[in-house]
């Protein structure tokens, strides 16, 4: 769907609904005569209008400055690299999450007693990593966003918010097999 720029709200600048006055038809016919150039010889006013229109048509348009053109065209070639940065940041965060989640598997030892203090430390470590991961993602987004103005992509709709990680309960059973699986 076309996104058309809004028209001015000022009634004086928005005369579509304006009353088409009595002289409207006369002026319309006069304008058609000026445009066609026919039957003007008997009306000096219309001849003068046509001559004036011709002189207005000789006003030259300025050249588009090269700097302006270059800036606009460069913008259309938009920076693609921030995508790579965003992908890298996401990969780093994901790696930390996976390593953190999977590493305890190799150390799983049912015979080892996990105390509440150990568990509290582990939870704290996971939450710290989680918070840092989110912080990295948000910082990256903030720094990268200004370079991500692309027509096909609306940055405000990008959701970088990560859901809270379910580690504490999900993985507790790896450490304490007796603990019932969380819902």
């Amino acid at each position: 769907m076309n996104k058309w720029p809004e028209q001015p709200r000022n009634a004086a600048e928005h005369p579509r609904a304006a009353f088409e006055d009595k002289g409207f038809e006369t002026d319309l016919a006069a304008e058609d005569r000026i445009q066609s150039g026919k039957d003007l010889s008997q009306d000096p006013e219309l001849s003068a209008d046509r001559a004036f229109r011709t002189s207005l048509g000789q006003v030259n348009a300025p050249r588009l400055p090269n700097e302006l053109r270059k800036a606009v065209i460069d913008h259309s070639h938009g920076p693609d690299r921030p995508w790579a940065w965003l992908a890298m940041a996401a990969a780093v965060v994901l790696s930390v999450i996976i390593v953190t989640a999977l590493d305890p598997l190799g150390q799983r030892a049912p015979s080892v007693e996990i105390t509440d203090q150990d568990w509290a430390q582990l939870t704290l470590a996971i939450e710290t990593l989680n918070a840092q991961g989110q912080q990295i993602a948000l910082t990256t987004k903030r720094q990268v966003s200004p370079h991500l103005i692309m027509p096909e992509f609306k940055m405000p709709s990008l959701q970088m918010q990560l859901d809270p990680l379910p580690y504490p309960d999900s993985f507790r059973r790896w450490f304490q097999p007796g603990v019932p699986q969380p819902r």
Partner: protein
Amino acid sequence: MRQRFEQLVDTHGARLLQLARLILRSASDAEDIVQDSLIKLWSQLPSLEPGTEPAWLVTCTRNACLDRLRAQRRQSGLLRQMHSVDRELARHINDQGPAAATLRQEQTRQLHDAIRALPEPARSLIILRDIQDQEVATVAKALDLTPNQVKVYTFRARRTLRRQLEECSHEQVA
């Protein structure tokens, strides 16, 4: 799409700049607005139907110019001072003799001032229809008018402008 965009920039860029310059006094403001309009065009291009871009560009540029004018009017005191400086500068240049300011330049300046002084939509109609010779349908779409309104309002604007310039010219002769 980039090729289409570059073609639009090359085809309509200069006309847009002319429109902005004839509405605004400042050339740098005009360039800023044209640059913004073209950048907006790039972001809107995928959603615009082919053929509607010229009208879209005119609407976008004109709206931005009118917004800028309104902002300038809010600073009217400052603006009056600037105009005063401009007049002094023009007088100073003219005092340097015919080599510095030719009659043709003076007429052009008078024409630009008279166009700027027209109310909307008369000003835009003179620029788009008479100076740039844009299609009635394109102008009608850009200014949200009917094609007949475009013709009639252009006729009236042109006559008003012509008479103003004639009066100005008679005053100078007198």
